[in-house]
């Protein structure tokens, strides 16, 4: 086992620092810096072409950076002695030989990584693919391919997991399974970095987010904090048959009230309890009183607006 695994710096933290990739005419990743903490699921978000995949591939030594560095637990990926025992990665679902069986795909990896052969069976069982072990890869559904990719990543029981668009092509059942699986791994103290553009899914899955656009960092932090930082947070939806009376009362309390096309009041400048109390005092009947949760999609679109994905 490598020194790296035991050393105190190797806590599974991912540090990206000043990372840059210049292709002929395009700067795919531009002086990007962020960190990913262990024990949490971090969503890596960005429009198509934002540089997510390039960043992950530089992190994993598949693409050579033009500048900057990316380390996992303090080490460059290329310097890890037994990389699969530290880091598991799922980069593309279709990456197995079409004519090879699922179990043989994993055995090939075990052989190269010096892992015991039975890890292949164990990893297949972990993702629920045991019944399809001896089927050829070309007969797998997209969901099964994703599961096989995850099984391959779990072969070395790594501390750090990196997944590129793992939810692509999964059915609702598969997505729910993936969510539970990844949250479970983070709960065990592992680092989980997941790139995606499925924002509603990320809102359910991620603890932290790193948002990039046009190769640059846009925002990083815990999901709640990123959501809370946005302008449209703090509105409250109110439905009432006595709209005019309530609006009058609320305006006295210097709240701003808009009305949407269905007659629902959207109140800012007063929280739900204030509105409820005011309605009770004015004897106004309420049918709905909902603090509007800002959603990741809206925040994301606002943050990345004007930074087109096609460059």
């Amino acid at each position, binding site marked *: 086992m490598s020194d790296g695994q035991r050393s105190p710096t190797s806590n599974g933290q991912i540090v990206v620092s000043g990372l840059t990739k210049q292709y002929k005419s395009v700067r795919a990743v531009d002086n990007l810096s962020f960190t990913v903490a262990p024990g949490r699921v971090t969503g890596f978000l960005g429009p198509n072409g934002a540089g997510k*995949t*390039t960043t992950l*591939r530089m992190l*994993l*030594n*598949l*693409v*050579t950076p033009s500048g900057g560095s990316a380390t996992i637990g303090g080490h460059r*990926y*290329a310097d*890890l002695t037994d*990389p*699969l025992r530290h880091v598991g*990665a799922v*980069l*593309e679902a*279709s*990456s*197995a*030989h*079409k*004519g*090879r*069986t699922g179990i*043989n*795909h994993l*055995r*090939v*990896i075990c*052989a*190269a*990584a*010096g892992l015991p052969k039975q890890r292949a069976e164990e990893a297949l069982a972990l993702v629920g693919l045991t019944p399809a072990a001896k089927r050829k890869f070309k007969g797998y559904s997209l969901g099964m391919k994703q599961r096989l990719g995850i099984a*391959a990543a779990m072969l070395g029981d790594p501390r750090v997991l990196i997944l590129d668009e793992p939810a692509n092509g999964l059915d609702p059942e598969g997505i729910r399974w993936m969510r539970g699986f990844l949250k479970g791994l983070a709960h065990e103290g592992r680092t989980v970095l997941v790139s995606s553009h499925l924002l509603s899914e990320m809102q359910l899955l991620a603890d932290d987010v790193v948002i990039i656009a046009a190769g640059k960092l846009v925002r990083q932090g815990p999901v709640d904090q990123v959501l809370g930082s946005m302008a449209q947070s703090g509105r409250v939806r109110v439905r009432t048959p006595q709209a005019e009376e309530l609006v009058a009362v609320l305006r006295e309390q210097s709240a701003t009230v808009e009305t949407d096309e269905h007659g629902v009041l959207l109140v800012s400048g007063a929280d739900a309890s204030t509105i409820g109390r005011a309605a009770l005092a004015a004897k106004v009947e309420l049918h709905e009183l909902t603090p509007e949760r800002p959603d990741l999609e809206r925040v994301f679109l606002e943050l990345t607006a004007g930074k087109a994905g096609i460059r």
Partner: protein
Amino acid sequence: MNLVRSELLKIRSTNTWWVFGLISLPLWVLTLLFNWLQTDAMSGLESGDVPADQAAQFEALQQADSLAANIYTNGQFFGLLIVMLLGIIVVTSEFFHQTVTTTFLTVPHRTAVMTAKLIAAAILAMVFWLVTTALNLVFGPLVLNASDVPLQLDSGGVWRAIGLNALAYLLWSVLGVGIGVLIRSQIGATVTGILLYLGGSIGAVAVLSILASRYGDWINNLQLVVPSLASSLMVSGTEIPGSPPQWAGAAVLIGYAVVAGVIGTLTIRRRDIS
């Protein structure tokens, strides 16, 4: 060692190797029949039957050693092609099926991966050589008997030819790996390899003989530069008058294999995998 095991498992766990084996078998039978006819014809001819300027070459080829060596290395023409294609596929299938990402994630040291691939392709080539040679040693004597040529199994020249045949299989598989790295497209690499092998021998012979008739016979020595001609020179059972020596063919082919292997390795070390 783990890596070589992994590479061999990659080959074993797909159809490729036995499909190629199945293709090789009828080709081997075909060349055996052809060589039988040739041996029969050659052993029956008198040197007076050929034009005087070719008599020396003819006599060299007509020797029992040469005829026997030709039979014991039977199947070589297609066998070399097959092991080169296998070498190509060892590399290009990784790009074709996008497994190269997984391979380099498992082992970031790309030089080690390439070395393992070269060794695995070489082992595979040796298996093909071993099987064809075994078949040749079983069926070759029948052909030689039928043509009244002594078996020559106690002749050093014959065993040297068999050994050099092994070297040829080895070198062509290494060349295949090199071609596979340089041309990632499975189809592109396969077509290039076949052209290099077949077109190389036929086309180059034609071009060289035209040039030789204009600029003099020394041009004929350039046939050494063509890999497939160097290879056939290397494995010819005996020294043929008027041709460059056998060892020169071997040296050229080894040179090509080393260059292909080294360029292939250096290329893959730098390449972005995306």
